[in-house]
């Protein structure tokens, strides 16, 4: 499945103390399980599959890291917003 070149990107910064650790990654991956197309988290030039806790963890995002959330299908806009809200809220920690 190709992306249609209309990726939607939201850039945000990790605010919680522990960074994107196992539990926060699990929360993101949980949301993404219901997406229509691929959802990515990007840090610098590295991209991780947002449906995989492990892949998100491998980005090693500490507090203060700038990340981009990328969706490939506009139908996943709600998911994009939900992830961004979660990150901005510091994962409720």
């Amino acid at each position, binding site marked *: 499945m190709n992306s249609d070149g209309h990726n939607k990107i939201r850039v945000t910064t990790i605010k919680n103390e*522990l*960074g994107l*650790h*196992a*539990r926060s990654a*699990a929360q993101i*991956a*949980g949301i993404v399980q219901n997406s229509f197309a691929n959802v990515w988290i990007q840090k610098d030039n590295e991209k991780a*599959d947002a*449906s*995989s*806790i*492990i*892949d998100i*963890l*491998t980005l*090693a995002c*500490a507090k203060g890291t700038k990340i981009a959330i990328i969706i490939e299908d506009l139908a996943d806009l709600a998911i994009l917003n939900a992830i961004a809200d979660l990150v901005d809220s510091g994962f409720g920690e």
Partner: protein
Amino acid sequence: MSKPVAQEKILKGIDASPGICIGKAYLVDKEGVDVVEKYFINDKQLQGEIKRFKAAVKKAGDEFQTVLKNRPEELQRDYILETHIALLKDKMLYGRTVETIQSEGVNAEWALKKIVSDLKATFEKMGDEYLRERAADVVHVSDAIMRNLVGIASKNIAAIDKRVILVANDLSPADTSQINLERIMGFITNRGGKASHTGIMAQALEIPAVVGLETATIAIKSDDLIIVDGNTGTVIIDPYEQTLFEYEERKIGYEDYRAVITRESHLRAETTDGTQLEVMANIEFPEEIVSVKNYGGDGIGLYRTEFQYMNRPDFPEEEELFGKYREVVELMDPKPVTIRTLDINGDKAVASQSGLDEVNPALGLRAIRYCLRKPDIFRTQLRAILRAAAFGNVRILFPMIAAYFEICAAINALDDAAESLEKDGLPYKREIDIGIMIEVPSAVVLADLLAEKADFFSIGTNDLIQYALAIDRGNRNVAHLYQPMDPAVLRLIQRVADVSREKELEVYMCGEMAATAHHIPLLLGLGMDELSMNPQSMPRAKRVIRALSVSDARSLTRKALKKKTARGVFEIVQSAYGDIISELEYH
């Protein structure tokens, strides 16, 4: 990003088996599931293999759910466990394992292990310590899947796929018996003392071992480059280039030395004044006969028979035992093969998971005590031994005899076994030498009574020293008190030797004590007729014997028996023979 330069790290432990090896570490984790067998799956069975993997994941998930459900309500949510449940189905773990099974046509265990070690490597490169440690979550989850894939019983170090140095907390006899010699370069364990099972096994396999390191499994990671120096008890992790170079040289030097002493090992061990001492081998497997012959063994002084009772759900059949014994007997014929009857608690060995645990197994139901309690199991082995005796030169040796009635009962059982073979019309030989293993202090005290019932005594020093001095040789806190040269030990041996002379019995020694160069003058002086040891110690022992005379050894022994401490005994041997021994020994 610059790669951090690894700092060379040195660990000191106990030298349990000589030799030097340099190679990659392979960590056996506590559950043993780290070591995984690899095999290929054909196209037709691929879907079945994937299903098997999915079923294991589901079972692991059910296990986690059960834990979650059984948590007390008042506790906070268990985010860690919830995360682990989510990880089970993670693409990078679950998805990629399924892909690997499919694309490489390998078994699920292997695919899972491959994916997990890739992931571990990725995590371990991370700068942030907290994130680096998340590898533990992935490992935990994959262990749960692995347990469900392989089942608890089958930890398998038999199928390691590369040449490695095994690093473990401890290696049980069952673990070591599975090891494929060609795959293992050396052993390192946290636990164990000089005469522990790991050391004995490593010596049998002729590979270096360092034990009692305490922290080896923490300090060493799988795939670390390590040097194991079994001559000095040193382990070096991430060695500098200079160190590597130095040890490569030492390794070559040691191998040259081995080659020299091996060349002359086929010659007899005769003292300078013409007394011949038989140098025999201790073995556990028929496969070891090759090294017994290479190293010029005069026979088998101790054939341990426990291993056929281990790693299995049932007891071995007579035919199976007979086959193994016959193989050894025929290969060694006409040289003698001393078969020791079962020296463990067979119930525990066979049903490794179950059975009641004894608080103090060394003082528990084992060896002859167990066999007399289980006449059927004993008879099966005795019949197999008597049948093998028809094919060569067999002696039988009863272990752990502590009382007169025990040797009587053992001989009765042997007669019964012979009678039943006679009835069945099977070929056998009853006229074999009967030996008593002298390894319990009470057997030393009763040696004169026991002598009436036997053709020979064989002194098992490992246990005799342990029981006489009340030292657990596997216990690091007291292992240094395990002293073969302790005056008490020498006097015990002296008594057995004196009784043997008086009653005209042969007296042998089959413990590790016989393999140590410094002990040999004393053993010669005390009048041992045979020394039995691990095969690769035989050339050196022969070398030492050839340098001694019986008359000198006797006068030395007389002096040694007057010493009050192990240290005193050592010093007297050292001053008389230190130069000779150090010339013959490797440095």
